[in-house]
């Protein structure tokens, strides 16, 4: 047939186009990934405030500590160079970012009156003067100067102090001083971290 050679070329051209369309590309395929959210973040070494183990953490903040920047925490994870935890963290420690970022954090003093069921707002001034009034009253009524055997003890057993896990060492120092001055013996804080 006279047209067979031309037809062969036609078929070849169609086949080549199909191959190009269906992808015989030699350029390697890549995929764009999510950016590493801590890539240019600032690393600050810190200690987990929660328990007495005292795990080392790294707090990642955006901004490079320039004058016009307020740092924002984007991530907290374990410090691999810390001898206690070597990078690991427990579930509470892993959620440390939320201790700073969570919108359910308690940011103001609240009071629940005796017999009350609801928490009410109270200003710092009112709260502090009310606490002072009650401490004075309780201490005046229940201070123990001598025990049953007649030894001088000078203690106050009706008030107890519990420190929060995020209190600083300096704050705890002041607390211990103040409570010992009152005679409080039921005293617990987290100065051991």
């Amino acid at each position, binding site marked *: 047939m006279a*047209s067979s050679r031309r*037809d062969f070329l036609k*078929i070849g051209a169609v086949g080549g186009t199909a191959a190009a369309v*269906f*992808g*015989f*590309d*030699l*350029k*390697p*395929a*890549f*995929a*764009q*990934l*999510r*950016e*590493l*959210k801590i*890539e*240019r973040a600032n690393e600050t070494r810190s200690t987990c405030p929660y328990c007495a183990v005292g795990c080392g953490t790294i707090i990642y903040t955006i901004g490079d500590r320039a004058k016009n920047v307020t740092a924002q925490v984007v*991530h*907290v*994870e*374990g410090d*691999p160079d810390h001898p206690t*935890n070597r*990078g*690991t*963290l*427990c*579930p509470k*420690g*892993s*959620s440390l*970012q*939320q201790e700073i970022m969570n919108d359910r954090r308690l940011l103001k003093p609240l009071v629940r009156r005796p017999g009350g069921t609801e928490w009410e707002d109270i200003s710092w001034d009112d709260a502090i003067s009310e606490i002072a009034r009650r401490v004075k009253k309780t201490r005046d009524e229940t201070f123990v100067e001598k025990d049953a055997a007649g030894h001088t003890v000078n203690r106050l057993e009706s008030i107890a102090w519990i420190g929060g896990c995020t209190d600083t060492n300096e704050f705890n120092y002041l607390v211990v001083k103040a409570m010992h001055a009152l005679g409080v013996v039921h005293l617990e804080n987290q100065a051991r971290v």
Partner: protein
Amino acid sequence: MSQETLRIQKISGHAGSVPGEDTQRQYTVCKLIDTTTCIGCKACEVACMEWNDLPFGETVFDNSYQTMPETRWNYWNLILFNEHEREDGSLMWLMRKNQCMHCAEPGCLAACPSDGAIVQYTNGIVDFQQDKCIGCGYCITGCPFNIPKFNKETKRVYKCTLCTDRVSQGLEPACIKSCPTGCLHFGSKDDMKYLAEQRAKQLRDHYNFPKAGVYDPPGVGGTGVIYVLHDASQPELYGGLPKDPRIPLSVKLWKGPLKWLGNIAMVGGLIGLFAHYLRYGPKEREEEAKEPHEGAQP
């Protein structure tokens, strides 16, 4: 910011071969989960949520410490708590970290019809590219581990990424880093298999678990997440871990023989048409065909 990319070795719904396939040596990453030392603290769950900035959802209490019955589109990593009574009547509390297994032959990728919506990188990580996802949900059918989860609002499917953003920058996944008991390990597949076998041998020889073994199912070509189990002969005890997971037969048929049959039928039809045209030329109208029409006209 980061323009980090990873090379791809498998693409979903892609006609033809993967561009640049086998032009680079491969280094496969792997998670090792030693269920015998897991204490169920859920640090990995929290670390996953924290790193991936996943929105919080309600947890579901079902008389167990388990956070919710199964993983969600925004909860990729879940510890399954299983109570198992041994033959002597004593109780065993089996905990298993459940997440994407990153199969070497992923069922989700095989089932996905959208070009490039599911990819497997050369390091073995199976990743969903949500911008190319069409929300058909076939990957959910294709997965033997029930991992991909659909988000009704964005109409996309989500799952564990094995922290590709971290791994590509030389960091370990967030869950691995947090684990306080060291029951999670991360490294190359060969190293993890070696470690797992060592641990299983230790359990068999010294800890009275004669059936201890490694879970790396060959039905899906091995997985990028391997387990050390107390009793490797009964993986079902660990929250329904399939004993021999396979890509569902329907997906296999549909993406295998049926797809090729369809392609052959379609391309063969076109070629046949073309060949017929070359051989016989355009169809010529036959004169007789007009006759009854003319006869009916007068």
